[in-house]
């Protein structure tokens, strides 16, 4: 249920976006007023406190995944907001858009990407349950308020273009300067290869200021107990409330909500 007193978060919908509803649901579960804003209404974006670019296939991934959307007019206010310090979270296709827009890793000019989430090394779309681990100090990701060091978050990797690719010197910069926000890991936090074949086994990138985060796996698709592939789902069987309870990947949104609240006057 929307709460008028809650911080307002725009979930930007492009033609071809397909994860907007579950993203709004996850935002509302953590007390944010998530609201869909379509690409045709860029003027509506200024009044929001934060932004989420959800998953899907914006503009059918024409030319390159995220490339057309990155140049869409609706991205102008998102880029301006990011530069003004507002929080911007991109998930999967949203992450691809942020990379094409030059907002992550943010080491070059706007809309002149220095890195990309390129086609998977296998040439195939992957859809697998994964865990991702925070790979930078928590103070490098103020967009995730209160996240604990080396936090492990479950999610679903579901993409054909999730392979971080960049020239060698840029990859070195990403690692050295703390842009490699998340890497793939097992449930215990031990590093594992990226299902996409991503360089650095990257699952997420953050900009220099830490207010823009691009993460490939969908935490919102592991936001409820019934979506887990572990014992908690089995333990909740027969208990409707427990089965439908927010858990797992919803933690990513809880930390995002904490960060949004910190920046929005009560």
């Amino acid at each position, binding site marked *: 249920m929307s709460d008028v007193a809650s911080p307002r978060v725009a979930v930007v919908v492009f033609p071809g976006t397909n994860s907007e509803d579950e993203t709004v649901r996850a935002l509302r579960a953590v007390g944010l007023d998530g609201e869909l804003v379509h690409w045709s209404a860029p003027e509506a974006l200024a009044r929001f406190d934060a932004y989420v670019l959800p998953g899907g296939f914006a*503009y*059918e991934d*024409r*030319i*390159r995944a995220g*490339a*057309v959307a990155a*140049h869409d*007019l609706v991205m102008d206010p998102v880029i301006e907001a990011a530069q003004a310090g507002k929080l911007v979270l991109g998930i999967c296709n949203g992450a691809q858009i942020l*990379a*094409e827009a030059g907002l992550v890793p943010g080491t070059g000019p706007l*809309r*002149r*990407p*220095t*890195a*990309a989430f*390129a*086609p998977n*090394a296998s*040439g195939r779309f992957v859809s697998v349950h994964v865990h991702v681990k925070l790979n930078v100090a928590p103070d490098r990701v103020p967009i995730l308020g209160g996240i604990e060091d080396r936090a492990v978050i479950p999610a679903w990797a579901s993409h054909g273009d999730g392979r971080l*690719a*960049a*020239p060698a010197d*840029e990859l070195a910069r990403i690692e050295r300067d703390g842009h490699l926000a998340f890497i793939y890991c097992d449930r215990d936090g031990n590093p594992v290869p990226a299902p996409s074949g991503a360089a650095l086994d990257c699952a997420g990138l953050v900009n220099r200021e830490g207010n823009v985060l691009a993460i490939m796996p969908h935490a919102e698709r592991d936001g409820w107990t019934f979506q887990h592939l572990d014992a908690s789902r089995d333990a909740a069987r027969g208990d409707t409330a427990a089965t439908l309870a927010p858990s797992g990947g919803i933690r990513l949104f809880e930390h995002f909500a904490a960060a949004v609240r910190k920046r929005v006057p009560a």
Partner: protein
Amino acid sequence: MTRTFAVSLTIPDNEAFTAFETLGRLGIDTSRVLRSDIWIFEGDLDAELAATIGSIETIHNPNKHRLTERQADLPEPGEVWVAPRDEAPATLVAGRALPGVRAILRRTAWRLLDDQGRDVAPAVLDRAVETFLCNPAFQVAIT
């Protein structure tokens, strides 16, 4: 031996139109954008290769595609090819091996025309490549 084929749509090309719209937003002056998929086959190639690939509908669907063989494995004047920087050549098409084919490379060919139907100036094409058509983080533009 190398043989190169271009596959273009005979029906409206939505991707080319989207590129045209986006390039216009970026201030790049063009009146029409043409796009082709380039397939480069290497190996001891069968004389029937053109007929073979012409019958593989994931490459060429005669209801909507035009298949032409190129004389060289390089872009024609006025054209730019965009290719993955770290491309690993494929050996299969639609899950099947083709006689004598040892490697398959793919590119996307772009051509920008002015309002007279001529190729735009090289500087305009270069700008389109730099600002939109090619992401140098993982792609290379071949002219």
